[in-house]
């Protein structure tokens, strides 16, 4: 019964949450609370753990909830359940796109969606910076994260260093410098 609950709840979340990652968390909270899947103290760990651990945020939150609710199989089940709706939808959309790729409508659609993605990703930089480099109200800038940001710009932009190496090095440095 618990497994069935997990499948239903996370399938629902996967099908109806737009925007990805952090934008999915409110719906996850709502559903998890409604079905009493986590105790209040575990619930507050949910955000911290799902963002601080490697992996996409939504499957992280799903695995955490499933694991606490129904053990290791529960975690695995929840992760796959949250991914299943978009799995089906992406395949259907790609089939449709393949058929109508040459149509004027689809070409126009991408003509507008490509610059939209540029705007979205640029805004994400500001958003993530707001949780690591600067703070609003009162405005302040943390110098060490700012330094890490600038060094990353140089290493990645100028010297084309592999982002994986940069993340590992900066994460290690941050453990001692930013703590």
């Amino acid at each position, binding site marked *: 019964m618990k497994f069935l609950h997990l499948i239903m709840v996370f399938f629902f979340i996967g099908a109806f949450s*737009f925007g990805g*990652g952090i*934008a999915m968390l409110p719906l996850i909270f709502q559903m998890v609370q409604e079905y009493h899947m986590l105790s209040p103290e*575990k619930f507050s760990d949910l955000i911290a*753990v799902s*963002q*601080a651990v*490697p*992996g*996409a*945020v939504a*499957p*992280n939150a*799903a*695995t*955490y909830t499933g*694991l*606490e609710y129904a053990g290791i199989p529960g*975690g695995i089940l929840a*992760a796959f359940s949250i991914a299943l*709706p*978009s799995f089906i*939808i*992406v395949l259907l*959309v*790609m089939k449709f796109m393949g058929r109508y790729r040459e149509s*004027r409508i689809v070409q*126009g659609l*991408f003509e*507008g*969606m*490509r610059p*939209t*993605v*540029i*705007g*979205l*990703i*640029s*805004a*994400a*930089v500001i958003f993530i910076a707001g*949780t*690591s480099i600067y703070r609003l109200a009162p405005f302040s800038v*943390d110098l*060490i994260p*700012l330094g*890490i*940001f600038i060094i*990353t*710009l140089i290493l*990645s932009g100028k010297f084309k260093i592999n*982002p*994986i190496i940069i*993340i590992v090095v*900066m*994460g290690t440095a941050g*453990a001692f*410098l*930013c703590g």
Partner: protein
Amino acid sequence: MTKKNKAKELFVLFLAFFKTGFFTVGGGYAMIPIIQRVIVEEKKWLNETEMIDCLAVCQALPGAVAVNAATFIGNKRNGIAGAAVATAGMLMPSILCITAVVLLLGALGENTYISGAFTAIKASACGLIAVTVFGMAKKVLKNPFHWTVALLVFVAIGIFEIMAVIPIILGGTAGIIYTAVKRKRAEAGDHQ
């Protein structure tokens, strides 16, 4: 293609997305520089424009963007089997890391080393994403229409914090109207 080659190709696909998922820390957008490096530059499974199209589609659909991107690229490479393997590869780091953290540590708690590492990774991710989006912008933003859309979306999201799916729909609609008007004008110009 022989069975053995097919299995090998699927395994490579799985590993590529496992690697991408494992180094995605702090949310879907942190995945973009990694996917750009691993999938576009190293494996050359998509070119840059296809990558941007993939992100546009994945943003517009429900679900986690990183997982959607894995399904999209997996399907493009090896059909449904490829999609399944790539998606599983992207999910696996979540499952393994969350399980390890919960079983070994109970929870992350207030560990200053971990929160320090996390702050640094996020600050670094800002730099990585900025470099990636700069490269994409050079490729995509070719005329005043593109610049206007990108700037409007940036302001709308950055300041008003609306959901990503809304600008994607509006931007797509604007693109359809823009290309239709441009075509009309070109046709009218031909007649003169």
